[in-house]
């Protein structure tokens, strides 16, 4: 059995057998520099103070924890939403981008390269770069540019250059490839501001550390309101940054069930989904050993989801580890179920969620119906749905026409 991290090796950047730094040699010095700066910054009170100040004064932390009033019909269940949709930028992405942008400055670099799927990470990167005076280049799949027009405009308004990627499937995977190519030519002056808790070490650890306040706040808030820990914490998983940010502080609390919701697209038994942990196999992509979607020869398969932000054929290595050890459970939600939850939340609670977050919500609603005991659920509402309005309108019109 192949294992890249034996117990005797115990290398940094591994989560059990998963993770690592599988990149061309050329990128290793840049990643090691980043690892060093990140480790130093974690111990630097000045850096932490600046990060915390930006989070509260600029981004609007802490975000509220909202008890839903009308949506859950089962009287035994209380469903709380962690409102990352209310964060500046419209999604949880802003948290970790501020952290990485500060690190960019700390490293003396003047430019930022980023990839984006739904455009939320691109928007977050663009706003942080505008704020901190960094030059910003965002790679985005041509197909994603089409379905996320408002976010493309937002990025441009904030001074970012958006570069369409037509290679491959024209989605997030191809945007990551292109960003890595750019970085390997420009690592001297540019930081690659990866948007999720995936990729090579130190990204999965760094992004988690810059997102973990989601779960820490939620824990304090639920203890204040309910006087006890929740029974279940639910988050959607594409690359996995909002989920790991939500899960991290609950991993040690074994009574709390952790559920990651993957995009099942047109069905887990179809070829059209992005449910890497539910249906994928182990392999190496974008710098990490993790679960990926691939054929028998190791060619990467194209993922599919109605939500651009979950449309990715790999997953963060810590999620692979939580899946392997059984600490977290990963399930699939299909496009239609997510679209239903999107509308349900709007109608019942007056909140329009991102299609990504709608996956977590859809599973929570299914789960809520089945409970016979008093149950407290916390869903990470990772982003708001403004960016999805045109796309959902089109999809619903097509459905109506059928």
């Amino acid at each position, binding site marked *: 059995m*192949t294992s890249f991290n034996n117990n005797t090796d115990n290398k940094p950047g591994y989560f059990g057998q998963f993770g690592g730094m599988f990149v*061309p*040699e*050329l990128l290793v010095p840049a990643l090691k520099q980043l690892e060093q700066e990140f480790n130093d910054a974690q111990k630097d009170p000045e850096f932490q103070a600046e990060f915390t100040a930006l989070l509260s004064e600029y981004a609007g932390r802490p975000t509220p924890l909202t008890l839903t009033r009308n949506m859950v019909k089962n009287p035994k269940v209380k469903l709380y939403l962690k409102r990352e949709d209310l964060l500046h930028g419209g999604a949880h992405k802003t948290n970790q981008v501020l952290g990485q942008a500060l690190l960019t400055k700390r490293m003396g670099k003047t430019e930022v390269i980023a990839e984006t799927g739904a455009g939320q990470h691109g928007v977050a990167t663009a706003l942080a770069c505008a704020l901190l005076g960094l030059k910003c280049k965002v790679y985005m799949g041509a197909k994603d540019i089409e379905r996320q027009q408002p976010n493309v405009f937002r990025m441009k308004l904030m001074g970012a250059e958006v570069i369409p990627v037509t290679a491959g499937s024209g989605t997030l*995977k191809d945007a990551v490839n292109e960003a890595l190519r750019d970085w390997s030519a420009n690592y001297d002056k540019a930081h690659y501001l990866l948007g999720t808790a995936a990729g090579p070490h130190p990204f999965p650890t760094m992004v988690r550390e810059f997102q973990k306040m989601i779960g820490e706040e939620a824990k304090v808030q639920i203890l204040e309101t309910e006087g006890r820990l929740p029974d279940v914490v639910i988050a959607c998983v594409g690359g996995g940054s909002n989920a790991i940010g939500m899960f991290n502080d609950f991993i040690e609390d074994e009574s709390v069930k952790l559920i990651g919701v993957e995009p099942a697209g047109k069905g887990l038994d179809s070829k059209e989904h992005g449910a890497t942990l539910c249906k994928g196999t182990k392999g190496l992509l974008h710098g990490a050993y993790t679960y990926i979607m691939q054929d028998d020869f190791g060619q990467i398969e194209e993922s599919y989801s109605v939500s651009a932000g979950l449309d990715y054929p790999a997953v963060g290595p810590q999620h692979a580890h939580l899946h392997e050890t059984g600490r977290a459970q990963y399930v699939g939600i299909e496009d239609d179920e997510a679209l239903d939850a999107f509308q349900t939340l709007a109608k019942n609670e007056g909140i329009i969620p991102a299609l990504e977050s709608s996956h977590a919500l859809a599973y929570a609603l299914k789960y809520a119906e089945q409970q016979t005991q008093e149950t407290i659920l916390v869903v990470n509402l990772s982003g708001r749905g403004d960016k999805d309005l045109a796309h959902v309108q089109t999809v619903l019109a097509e459905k109506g026409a059928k």
Partner: protein
Amino acid sequence: MSTNNRYQTKFEALLANKQGAFVPFVTIGDPNAELSFEIIKSLIDGGADALELGIPFSDPVADGPVIQKANIRALKANSNTDVCFEILKKVREYNKDIPIGLLLYSNLIFARGLDKFYLDAKQAGVDSVLVADIPLHESKLFRASAKMAGIDPIFIATPNANNDTLKTCASYGRGYTYLLSRAGVTGTDTQAVMPATSIISKLNEYHAAPSLLGFGISTPEHVKSALDSGAAGAISGSAVVKIIEDNLAEPITMLSELKDFTQKMKAATL
């Protein structure tokens, strides 16, 4: 170290004749299996000293646009690792002596199983394997499987490497050392800029295998300056693959141009 090493034999012969090595790269199966074999033959007939061959991959992050397209063409023509090994066997039959190196991405090896991949490669007549996305510090299992199968593991000496890294590169590598002329991805848009002299002398000091300079090598002048800087030879990829791309509709022209190009580049090593 593998016995009867084709690289060693070749480098010794070149040294005796005061020549450098010219090594062309193409993606196996591009644009299809049949023509790919003819393409590789024309490189050998043109006087290539060794071959660097890619197994196509869906996500070649270290490659620029020209080689990306070659990967896509090969995959569209249903190339895969099995098909590539069949072509490699035919190439080895065609020429028993030329050193053959594979350049590919780690997931293709992992998906087949590391030991099986290296054994199959050995059986297909492959001498070395360079894994584009496996840096030195993650290479342990790949080196172990390569050693077991008698394949030379190739590592990349980069312009940004410190002395410790170059030392490790020298100690892990066999066959030859792939010397990067510059940062970035493969391609001819950005030419080789590095005076590689200082890295080469470091590598020599650490007893590394002979260096072949790659990335941005597209003219006989590039080959000459690679040799002048102390490299044992030069690798040219995107410039070769561009000839394939430009002549997809005219296979006969394609093959003769590939042979001509190889001859011209080889002539610069004399």
